[in-house]
């Protein structure tokens, strides 16, 4: 009996078929837009959609082949693509990363990065705050020195930098 944690969240077959379908749709979209632009021979040469149209066609053909092959392979249904535990681990990283990228626009790169690193250390590393704060802040200060001062590459800044007059 498998424990619930190790249970598969999705079989390889399901994901394989799903991805092939998305890829097929993407190929169809490419073909559709290329056809709209004109995928044939214009007055002075091939039209804008000529090349991408056939690219889209090849995407559709290859994804259909992947789709068909996945359906015929019964082994794939039993194989686990990702277990529940693995999926949980991935999400504990992916969700904060999405939040982090969203926050950059409001807080600036440095503050958002400090928070992001601190969250990781707290949630995954179970570090005490006395270690988290200096490491997270130190990394951001180091990045500030490297990018803003040394390489002179400005990154987006937020209210804290404005307050400190660092813009």
């Amino acid at each position: 009996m498998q424990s619930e944690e190790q249970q598969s969240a999705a079989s390889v077959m399901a994901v394989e078929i799903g991805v092939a379908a998305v890829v097929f749709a993407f190929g169809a979209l490419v073909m559709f837009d290329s056809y709209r632009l004109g995928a044939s021979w214009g007055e002075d040469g091939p039209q804008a959609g000529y090349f991408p149209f056939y690219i889209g066609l090849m995407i559709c053909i290859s994804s259909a082949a992947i789709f068909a092959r996945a359906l015929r392979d019964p082994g794939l249904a039993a194989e686990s693509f990702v277990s529940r535990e693995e999926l949980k681990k991935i999400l504990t990283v992916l969700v904060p990363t999405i939040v982090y990228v969203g926050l950059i626009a409001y807080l600036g790169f440095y503050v958002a990065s400090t928070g992001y690193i601190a969250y990781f250390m707290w949630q995954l590393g179970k570090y005490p705050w006395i270690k988290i704060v200096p490491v997270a802040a130190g990394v951001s200060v180091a990045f500030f020195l490297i990018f803003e001062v040394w390489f002179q590459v400005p990154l987006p800044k937020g209210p804290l930098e404005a307050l400190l007059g660092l813009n």
Partner: protein
Amino acid sequence: MEEINALMQGFGVALSPFNLLLMFAGVILGIVIGVLPGLGGANGVAILLPLTFSMAQQPGGTTSAIILLSCIYWGALFGGAITSILFNIPGEPWSVATTFDGHPLAQKGRAGSALTAAFTSSFVGALVAVIMITFLSPVVAGFALRFGPPEFFSVYLLTFCAFVGMSGGNAAKTIASMMIGFALAAVGLDSVTGTLRLTFGSTALLKGFDFLIAVIGLFGIGEILETLEEGLAFKGASARINIKVVLETWKELPRYWATSLRSSAVGCFMGIVPGGATPASFMSYGLARRLSRDGKDFGSGIVEGVVAPETAAHAAGTSALLPMITLGVPGSPTAAVLLGGLLIWGLQPGPLLFVEKPDFVWGLIASMYLGNIVGLIVVLTCVPLFAAILRIPFSIIAPVIIVICAIGAYTVHNSMFDVWLMVIFGVVGYGFKKLRYPLAPMVLALVLGDRAEENFRNAIKGSQGDLLVFFSNALVGGLTALALTLLFWPVLAAGWRILRGRR
């Protein structure tokens, strides 16, 4: 001996104090990148590429910039071996074969010998490849000067067909991945007709997809997600190297000259034909096991089992630059990123580079000799330092790497949209990797898409739409025929086996 003269001038360029400093910086950064999970040659170079934009605008700056970036590449090649041997974690796909014998050696307490053997054979492999580049690239470039659009397109076709035929994986997945790359490259303004393609009214898509963002997301974020799932517990052997061990190992190495030579040849060949370093290292490990007198001991921790894959991986990684500078066709994802760098700096990779920018080309080639010597010295002396990086807990290093990736993605165009794209590419990269869609063809198609299309269009424009233009003379016909042969290689090989089996 024209090449020797040109090479000497190249050494004159590469040996300036500033360029030497960049070499050291590049190699050290490269080793760190090679050691860290989630960062590798391709995305490491991609992240640091924006930092060279201002450097490249100064006179002679493009040479310095390519020296910095190519040295990062050499460093990453060296760095992969450290984690494979000490931690049994291949930092790079091409060091997977190094773990087979490298890690058992380390467990026997011979980590020093394993590392010395790995670094030295890496160096030998790279050296053989650079010598080949020195003498072969002017010939190839001279030959390619006669190329017109049909010939160039057939060279691109050859590259991509070789991927499908030689990769050994699922051909449909290779084709799908490659065509997605081409489709993404087509997004945005069409340079010939001025129409907008595949933008669907979105202004953010006007400038198209930048391959740098794709590389950072696919290889960086994707890999972090993958590593995370396995749950990271670094348990490493200690990394002590002293001069005695180095000398003892060097005394042992000449015995494996046959393996070295064979592996270098395999590596050089696989590097030029876009197969890349990874298959080269496996192939040469397999060949060594079959042909060596100690073949049965392979896998139990013998030095020869480290020599074979490392020599081949480095030879392949280095010779991947030959088609990049002579034809504008990169042999590996990292070479593709370097090629993208050249385009951004305003250089046209291809045969004309040898005529118009001899300083740049020969400076780069000279820096390959020097960079690998610098690399060998740095790794032999500083291994414990680099190994210590892996002892930093994953919960600290992972967010720092993601932050670095985000900064890298942002600085390409100073756009937040690119950072979002990076996250999306990261998820796609994770899924594709788990489903065994190869990522390298996608990156190569993304880089070469526009140039391939341009040459295709010009070629069929010249022939009024007749596709037979790709067979119109011996040269282009030969290239196209070779491309088609490679494309259908698995089918042909299977057919041949059946025919032979019947007899």
